């Protein structure tokens, strides 16, 4: 084995660009161009909270994961939100989420993991290169968007946390603080907001922990500083402003599922063939468009994720 004595001027190993990234440097540049382009959007000049992402631009995610459909206008994606912690009207989060303090932020990691603890957000994210993924988002209310996210694959983070063999599900929790989240002063939902995934769903490379969108840090109303993005499930599964990630043995409680179990299943995969009891899921309106478009099974990600549910009756496990 060759013995290598490091020179003082050598770059440390951690600064070396991984070969996989280097090979994709053109995509990297394209991503940077996209980020720069986003800066030129008129909407971007407006927000104070939208500090532009520092550090290296994200690389594009694996092929087939990023859609080339046109992205929804940033203005719409950051002003039409369901985030009941700030009020139940779609405009409420953009108007009221300024009270959320996202720095410093830490995430409690517990349950079936090798080293439970409370980890500062920077440390949680640091080892993972962030990626740019343009995903469709389908809300259970039958509207949809296309959003360029920046984030890290959830699976990579979970593997680093070293789940034990008893870890069958991942549970997430949103911040509980009625001071910062005025919507929590009324019990519209059973706070804190909770969501969960089966471990194989969480490990799926499509599942993303997002820290940014449109080339900038997440606006508070979109779930800053850390949110889940599970593009093949209805939007409410993609929990926002996460403060706790637990690996657990039993299926964890999920807020909307508890609120109305007959309307919102634990899985809540996008499925045009299973209607919401009160409205149709067959079609959706892409925000910014006028005509409805047909809703696709698994929100168009069937090729990637349908295998996770092989043999399951998706009408029963909706």
């Amino acid at each position: 084995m060759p013995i290598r004595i490091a020179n003082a001027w050598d770059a440390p190993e951690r600064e070396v660009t991984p070969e996989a990234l280097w090979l994709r440097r053109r995509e990297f540049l394209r991503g940077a161009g996209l980020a720069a382009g986003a800066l030129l959007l008129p909407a971007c000049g407006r927000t104070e909270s939208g500090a532009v992402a520092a550090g290296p631009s994200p690389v594009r995610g694996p092929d087939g994961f990023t859609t080339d459909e046109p992205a929804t206008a940033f203005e719409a994606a950051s002003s039409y939100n369901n985030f009941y912690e700030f009020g139940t009207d779609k405009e409420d989060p953009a108007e009221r989420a300024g009270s959320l303090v996202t720095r410093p932020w830490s995430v409690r990691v517990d349950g079936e993991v090798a080293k439970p603890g409370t980890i500062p957000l920077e440390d949680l994210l640091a080892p993972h290169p962030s990626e740019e993924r343009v995903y469709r988002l389908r809300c259970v209310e039958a509207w949809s968007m296309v959003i360029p996210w920046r984030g890290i694959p959830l699976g990579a983070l979970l593997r680093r946390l070293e789940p034990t063999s008893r870890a069958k599900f991942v549970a997430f929790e949103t911040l509980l603080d009625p001071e910062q989240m005025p919507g929590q002063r009324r019990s519209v939902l059973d706070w804190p907001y909770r969501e969960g995934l089966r471990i194989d769903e969480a490990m799926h490379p499509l599942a993303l922990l997002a820290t940014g969108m449109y080339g900038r840090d997440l606006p508070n109303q979109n779930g800053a500083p850390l949110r889940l993005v599970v593009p093949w499930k209805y939007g409410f599964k993609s929990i926002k402003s996460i403060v706790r990630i637990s690996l657990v043995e039993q299926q964890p409680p999920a807020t909307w599922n508890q609120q109305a179990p007959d309307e919102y299943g634990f899985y809540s995969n996008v499925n045009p063939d299973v209607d919401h009891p009160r409205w149709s899921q067959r079609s959706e309106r892409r925000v910014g468009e006028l005509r409805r478009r047909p809703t696709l099974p698994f929100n168009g990600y069937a090729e990637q994720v349908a295998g996770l549910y092989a043999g399951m009756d998706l009408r029963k496990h909706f």
Partner: protein
Amino acid sequence: MRRSRARALHAAVIALSALPAGVLALRAARGTLGAEPIETLTHETGQWALRFLLLSLAVTPARRLLRAPFLAPWRRSLGLAAFGYACLHLSVYLALDQVFDWSAVVEDVAERPYVTAGATALLCLVPLAATSTRGAQRRLGGRRWRNLHRLAYAAAAAAVVHFLWLVKADLREPLLYAGVLAALLGARLLPERGAS
């Protein structure tokens, strides 16, 4: 109150009832209906239909309470405004939301209870609007006309249920309307003070 002033006031009420539609048209023209303009139009026209319906139901109790006979003609005007907004609401749904996808519309009306309730509310209003003229009132006769027009309460109840059933978790708004309707119904059921 002098007859001319009462007329002017009534004319002002009619003009004001067109104001929300005007504002919506302006917002549509200027592109300020928000991220989901069709949804905004649907919600706004529906809410104004319900508000005008409740206002028209408030006229008789108010007239009696305030001993203000000049309010009487407001009832028809406000009721017709409610019908107008309900028709706009239906038009937005049919033409803009569903774009005349009749199979989807039939499925909605048949299978979605909240849509069925909304359709019921609108259907209740049709005969009321059709018999809103003085001539129709005369032809039907006072008693029959009054009985028929009690349908306004059924329409309002169906409209409140329509609203209640479409809300996901926050029931405050529809419950507020339900409370107002209950109060108005109560006001009519109480024995009248003196002859009306």
